C-alpha cells in the first residue's frame, strides 16, 4: 500500500495553501521565487522519525509563510532511501525539488549499487543532528550501563537488540556497542523507529538505541529507561543520563537531518532555499521542538555542509567495512 501524493492532491494542496498564504507576505520576496509547488522528497516511509520531522518542517514553512509556494512532502522510503536517491538523480537541474536526508544518505549508496554519487547533489542546509540513546524496558531491572553490559553478557545471543533495517543507523550504533564491550547480541530489524519503540515496551526485544523523539511518549509514562546517550555532551532534556564518553567509552554517533537538492540546481534557487531554512531554524517552533525532543540544532550550509557530508561518508564507510569484517 504505497501511497504518495497525487498530482490532484498537489493542486488541491496548492489551492488550499494559497488560501492560507495569500494574506501573509514573505520576507524572502526578492529575487528568485519558486514558480510551482516544491516537492520535498523524504527518504523514509510515513510515520517514522524522519517523516515526522519533515512534516514538521513543512508545517512551519506553511505556518510562517516562509515560501510563496506550498511544500509537498513525498515519501520515497523504498530500500533504505534507494528509491529517493534514484529519484533525485533523475531530477538533475530541477529547481523545485528538495530532499530531506538522514544517514542512509551515505550508507545506502555505499551498501547497494544504485548508481548514485551523493557528491553530485547540491547541499542546501543541515538543520539538526538527532541523538541516540540506549533504552531498556522499565521492568528489566537495569538502571545503568554496567548492569546492562553484565545482563547482555549473561544472556549472550538471547539478548535481542531491536532497530531499523540492517546497515542503517541503529545497527551501526549496535555494532559499535558490541565492539566496545565485546558483546554479541541478536539484532532484530524493524520497519521504523516507532515500531522498534513499541516492541521494546511490549517486551518483544530487550533494548533499543531509539532517537529520543521515538521513545519520548513511553519515557514520560515511565515505561522505558534511558541508560546512556551517544552524544558529545549531556542532553538538556535528559540531564541525568550520562554520555558514553563520560563513562570512558568513546561512542559518539549522530543522525544528520539535512536538505539537499538535485545536481546543478540554479544558484538563485539554492540561495532561496538556503535562506528559507535559515529563517526556519530561527523560528520559535523549531527552537522549542529541538529542546523538547533532544535534538542538537546544528545549522550548516554550502561548502561546509558538503565537506561534512564527505567526512561522514568516509566515517560510515569505515564502520560498514568493520561490520562486514566481523560477520
Amino acid at each position, binding site marked *: *500500500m*504505497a*501511497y*504518495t*501524493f*497525487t*498530482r*490532484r*492532491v498537489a493542486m*488541491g*494542496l496548492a489551492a*488550499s*495553501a494559497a*488560501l*492560507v498564504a495569500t494574506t501573509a507576505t514573505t520576507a524572502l520576496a526578492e529575487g528568485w521565487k519558486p514558480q510551482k509547488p516544491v516537492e520535498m522528497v523524504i527518504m523514509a516511509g*510515513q*510515520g517514522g522519525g524522519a*517523516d*515526522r520531522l519533515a*512534516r*514538521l518542517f513543512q*508545517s512551519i514553512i*506553511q*505556518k510562517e509563510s516562509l515560501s510563496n509556494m506550498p511544500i509537498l512532502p513525498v515519501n*520515497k522510503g*523504498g*530500500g*533504505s532511501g*534507494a*528509491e529517493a536517491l*534514484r529519484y533525485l538523480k533523475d531530477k538533475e537541474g530541477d529547481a523545485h525539488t528538495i530532499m530531506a536526508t538522514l544517514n542512509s544518505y551515505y550508507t*545506502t549508496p555505499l551498501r*547497494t549499487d544504485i548508481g548514485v554519487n551523493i557528491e553530485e547533489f547540491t547541499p542546501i542546509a543541515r538543520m539538526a543532528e538527532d541523538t541516540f540513546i540506549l533504552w531498556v524496558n522499565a521492568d528489566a531491572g537495569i538502571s545503568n550501563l554496567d548492569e546492562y553490559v553484565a545482563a547482555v553478557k549473561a544472556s549472550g*545471543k*538471547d539478548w*535481542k537488540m531491536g532497530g531499523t*533495517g*540492517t*546497515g542503517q543507523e541503529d545497527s551501526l550504533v549496535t555494532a559499535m556497542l558490541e565492539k566496545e564491550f565485546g558483546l554479541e547480541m*541478536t*539484532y*532484530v*530489524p*524493524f*520497519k521504523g523507529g*516507532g*515500531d522498534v*519503540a*513499541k*516492541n521494546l*515496551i*511490549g517486551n*518483544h*526485544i530487550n533494548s533499543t538505541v531509539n532517537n529520543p523523539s521515538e521513545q*519520548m*511518549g*513511553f519515557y*514520560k*509514562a515511565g*515505561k522505558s529507561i534511558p541508560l546512556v546517550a551517544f552524544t558529545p555532551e549531556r542532553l538538556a532534556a535528559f540531564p541525568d543520563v550520562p554520555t558514553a564518553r563520560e563513562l570512558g567509552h568513546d561512542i559518539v554517533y549522530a543522525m544528520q537531518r539535512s536538505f539537499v537538492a538535485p545536481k546543478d540546481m540554479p544558484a538563485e534557487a539554492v540561495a532561496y532555499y538556503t535562506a528559507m531554512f535559515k529563517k526556519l531554524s530561527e523560528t520559535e517552533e523549531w527552537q522549542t521542538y529541538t529542546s523538547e525532543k533532544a535534538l542538537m540544532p546544528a545549522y550548516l550550509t554550502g561548502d561546509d555542509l558538503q565537506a561534512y557530508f564527505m567526512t561522514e561518508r568516509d566515517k560510515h564507510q569505515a564502520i560498514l567495512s568493520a561490520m562486514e569484517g566481523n560477520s
Partner: protein
Amino acid sequence: MDVLALLAEGFATSLSPLNLMVVILGVTAGLFIGAMPGLGSVNGVAIVLPLTFIVPPSSAIILLAAIYYGAMYGGAVSSILLGIPGASTAVATTFDGRPMAQQGKAGLALIAAAVASFVGGTISVILFTLFAAPLADVALAFGPAEEFALVLMAFTTFVGLGGDDKLKTIIMICLGLVLSTVGLDLISGQPRLIFGDMPGFYSGISFLVLAIGVYGVGEVLYTIETSKSSPQVTPAKITFGELALGIKAMGRIWKTMSFGSFMGFFVGMLPAAGATPASLMAYGVAKQTSKHPETFGKGNIEGVAAPETANNAASTGSLLPMLTLGIPGSPTTALLLGGMVMWGLVPGPMLFIEQPDFVWGLISSLYTANFAAVLINIALIPLFVWALRMPFTVLCSIVLVLCIVGGFAPSQKMHDVWLIAGFGVAGYLLRKADYPLAPLVLALVLGPLMEKSFRQTLIAEQGNVFAFVERPLSGTFIAIAALFFVLPFIKYLRKGTRSGIAPAE
C-alpha cells in the same frame, strides 16, 4: 462512571456549532474523495492538513477524522457501482457488491454498505470509549510472532472457503505471495524480482494496482464478452420501500455485522495492519461461517456487510495505537499523527492524562461523524444509482478511464498503468478459468507483513520455529488457524453422514 463523564464533556466540545459544521463538511468531502478511484482517505487528509491551522487543534483533528470516516463510507460506492475499488479498504466490497449491482440490486447493496459502515463504526467507537486504556496493552502484546500467527489465520479463512476449489485457492495465494516479494527486501534492502533493472519495480507492486487491474479492467473485459453485442442496461432504481426493505434485511445479518465490527476493530488496532486486511479477513470469516458459502461472490448481501463493517471498525481501531502509543496503524493515521505533532501534541500514554479535552473531543466526534455519514450517504444513494442508468457502452469507457486515472494517481508512474493493463487481461483469463481472485489480492496485501514478521521472529528466536506455538497469544491464533483449515472438511464429512443416514431428506 469516569469515562462517561469525560465523554459527556467531549460531546460538549464536539457538538459546538463550529465542530458540528466541521463534521458535516468533512464527512461530505470524505464521501466523494473515497468514492473516486485512486483517491482515498490518505489523499483527503493530506489535502486538508495544511488548512487546519486556521481552526483550533480539536476542531482540526475532528475535521480530519470526519474525512477519514467519510472516505470509508465512500469507498464502497464505486466498488459497488463500477466494480473498481474506490479505496484499498473497499476492495473486499467489490466481491459481492458488484454482482449485486449487476442483478439490479445496486440500491440495496449501497444501503447495506451504509448501514454496515454505521454499525461497524458505532460498535468500534463504543469499544474505544470503554476500553481504550486496557486495549493499548493488547496492542503492545503483539510482537512479530503474534503478527505472523494472525496473518496465517487470515490465510486459512480463505483456503477453507466452502464454495471454491481449494487447490485453485492455494495456487492463487502462492501467486499473490510471489508478487508481494517484488521490490526491495525489507530487511537487507536488496532489490528482488525487478525483472532486470526496471526502476518501477523498486517500490514493489501496489496492491491497489492489482485490485484495479483484476477487478476494474478484468470486469469490463468479462462484461463485454458476456453481454456480446446486446449491451445490457442495469435496471437500477431506488424507492423508500426498498430502503425500508434494505434496513430490514440488515437486521437478519446482525451476527455477521457484529463479528465484522469486533474483528475489524481488533485488527485495525494492531500497528501495521489497518483497515484493508481487516476488511478482507472479515469477508473470509463471513464466508467461512456462512451456511451458504457458495453464494458468496455472486451477490450475497453479507459479503458486502462484512467488509464494510470491518473497514469502518478498523479505522476507529487504528486511532487507538496512534493516540495511546504514538504508532500509526495505517497510512492515514500516520498523517493524522503528523498533524498532532504540528499542533504541539505529544501522542503516547500521557496524552489521555495531559490532553483530555482533545482526546475526548475526538472520540465524541466519532459518534457524530458516524451519524452524519450514514444520513448523508443514504440521502445520496439515489444520485449514485442514477449514474448506473447510463448505457453500458458509455459506462464501460468511463470505468476504463477511471481505472487508468486511479492507477496512475497514487504513484504517478506509467509503469503502474501498464501493470494494470497486464493484470486486467490476466484477471479476465483467470476468471474464465474459474480461479478465485480474492485470495490473490489478500496475499499481496498480507504477504509483506507475513514475510517480515516471520523473519523477525526467526531472527529474534535464533531459528527456533517452535517460538510461534510456545507463545500463548500466537499459539492460540495458530490453533484457530488450524481449526479454520480443517473446518470445511468436518462440515463436508458431517454433511456426508447426514445425507447417508437420512437419504429421504
